[in-house]
């Protein structure tokens, strides 16, 4: 049986298009804040896991090594994990193994991304995720696969662009209350519809920005956590799963790999009815349609019905089932690995009543964070619970 594991602290930097800090300085700031929030020092940390996405943004190879000193990993068992966009939620899952296995009492999970160095635009680095022989010669951009997936999702369930745009409107408005947010805004469905066409059906306001930032959490054994608080936040379950890399052979209308990851986490957490037993969720939303897609994969809504749930207002911060009360990637920003970790931080802040203006109205005990990545095929799911 794995040991019970708790989250004892969380920290993050501002998310912005360009930051002055180097990646290790960003990692240091988020890590220091997480340790201070836990009320412990680095000397009490046994192991460290860092997460960061493709090296090409920074132009620095071996980013694990590069981030080491800023992540508190010096002279410790330290490693870097990388599963594309899903890294931010996978990093604390890897930290969970370290503590659940009994290997360490305290493990730091740190995620950092600095996308701004790459010129003329970070978008360019994504070119190299495609197959070099049969896809790159066609002139691919990252946006293609999302636009193709969004179109297939719309087709499968007869969903309109306007219904999808509601997600962007909600998340950007939620982000107005996040002190770290890059793109909090009051916008309308019409604004989204009229925004520049990038790769139709994806328009500018359907997409999250490119960002710099870092975020971190501290995980500890139950015994250690109980020395700090009577009422700790527990890791109730985690799951991860990946689909085939032959993405043009997949059913793009439904993320089966996410359902697999979610069922793995629900089994561990003893959750039978996720919609009833989970109070709120931070669902990965690099594009507005992805929030809907992921709500279905997570079994919060039936296939094709997440847009109705959104239109009903249920997923608003003060609704019956808040989704992305932080403001999500669409509003807070998308420094890839750090964006997933921001979601884990938000679940922790909400469960410990530290979310300030973003605190959801209803009492919350169980929250879920999810991220998604690689060639739109990987999902990581983490469930936190406070009694």
């Amino acid at each position, binding site marked *: 049986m794995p040991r019970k594991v708790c989250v004892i602290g969380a920290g993050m930097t501002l998310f912005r298009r360009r930051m002055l800090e180097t990646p290790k300085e960003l990692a240091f700031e988020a890590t220091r804040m997480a340790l201070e929030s836990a009320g412990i020092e680095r000397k009490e940390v046994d192991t460290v896991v860092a997460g960061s996405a493709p090296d090409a943004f920074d132009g620095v190879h071996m980013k694990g090594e590069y981030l080491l000193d800023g992540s508190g990993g010096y002279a410790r068992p330290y490693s870097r994990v990388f599963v594309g966009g899903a890294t931010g939620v996978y990093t604390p899952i890897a930290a969970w193994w370290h503590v659940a296995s009994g290997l360490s009492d305290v493990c730091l999970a740190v995620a950092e991304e600095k996308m701004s160095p790459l010129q003329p635009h970070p978008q360019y680095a994504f070119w190299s995720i495609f197959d070099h*022989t049969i*896809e790159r010669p066609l002139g691919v951009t990252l946006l293609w696969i999302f*636009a193709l997936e969004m179109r*297939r999702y719309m087709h499968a369930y007869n969903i309109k662009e306007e219904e999808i745009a509601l997600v962007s409107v909600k998340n950007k408005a939620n982000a107005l209350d996040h002190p770290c947010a890059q793109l909090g805004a009051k916008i309308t469905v019409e604004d989204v519809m009229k925004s520049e066409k990038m790769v*139709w059906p994806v328009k500018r306001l359907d997409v999250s920005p490119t960002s710099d930032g870092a975020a971190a959490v501290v995980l500890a054994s139950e015994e250690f956590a109980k020395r700090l608080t009577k009422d700790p936040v527990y890791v109730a379950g985690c799951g991860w799963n990946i689909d085939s890399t032959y993405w043009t*052979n997949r059913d*793009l209308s439904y993320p089966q790999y996410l359902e697999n990851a979610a069922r793995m986490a629900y089994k561990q957490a003893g959750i039978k009815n996720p919609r009833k037993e989970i109070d709120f969720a931070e669902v990965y939303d690099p594009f507005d349609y992805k929030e809907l897609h992921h709500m279905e994969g997570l079994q919060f809504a039936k296939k094709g019905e997440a847009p109705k749930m959104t239109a009903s207002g249920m997923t608003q911060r003060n609704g019956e089932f808040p989704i992305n009360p932080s403001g999500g990637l669409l509003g807070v920003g998308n420094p890839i690995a750090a964006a997933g970790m921001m979601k884990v931080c938000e679940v922790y802040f909400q469960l410990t009543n530290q979310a300030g203006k973003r605190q959801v109205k209803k009492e919350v005990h169980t929250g879920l964070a999810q991220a998604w990545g690689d060639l739109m095929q990987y999902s990581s799911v983490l469930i936190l619970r406070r009694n």
Partner: protein
Amino acid sequence: MSERVKFFPGREVSAEAFQSGSVLLTEYSTDLKYSWASGVAISKFLNELKNGKIVGRKCNRCDRILVPPRMFCEECFRLTDSWIYTKDTGTVNTYSIAYVGTDASRLKEPLYIAVINIDGASPGMGFLHLLNEIKSEKEIKVGMKVRAVWKEQSERTGSILDIKYFKPL
């Protein structure tokens, strides 16, 4: 906020400061060159494109005809068994209209892109390609039947671009 969470660290650099150079920057560019071997399955696929044919690979255990072809079946995790020629027609599984290029610059003319399920392969098996000879954007539909438009034989090089694009049937 809370007792312990009061302040979020970080210093933003504005676009103006970045572009005017008032923030210290070090610049570097690199030109990495690669030569990728096409592999066992895709070499055959490309050689057959040169002949004006699309070829898939069959797995006798799950009975699937796989396009793009691979020497192993990821489902059964065994070597695949034989080459199967498909048709050069197919169905649009999904499509998009690209207005931005690889480096996020704006294209002069939009590109029509699609995942095309290939006739003669197993359901849902297809690859990414371009669409053209489209009269109006409204003409493009999921489920639309399309046919490959090939380069002249003398111009083919054994590349995915030996198919110029797919056009409506």
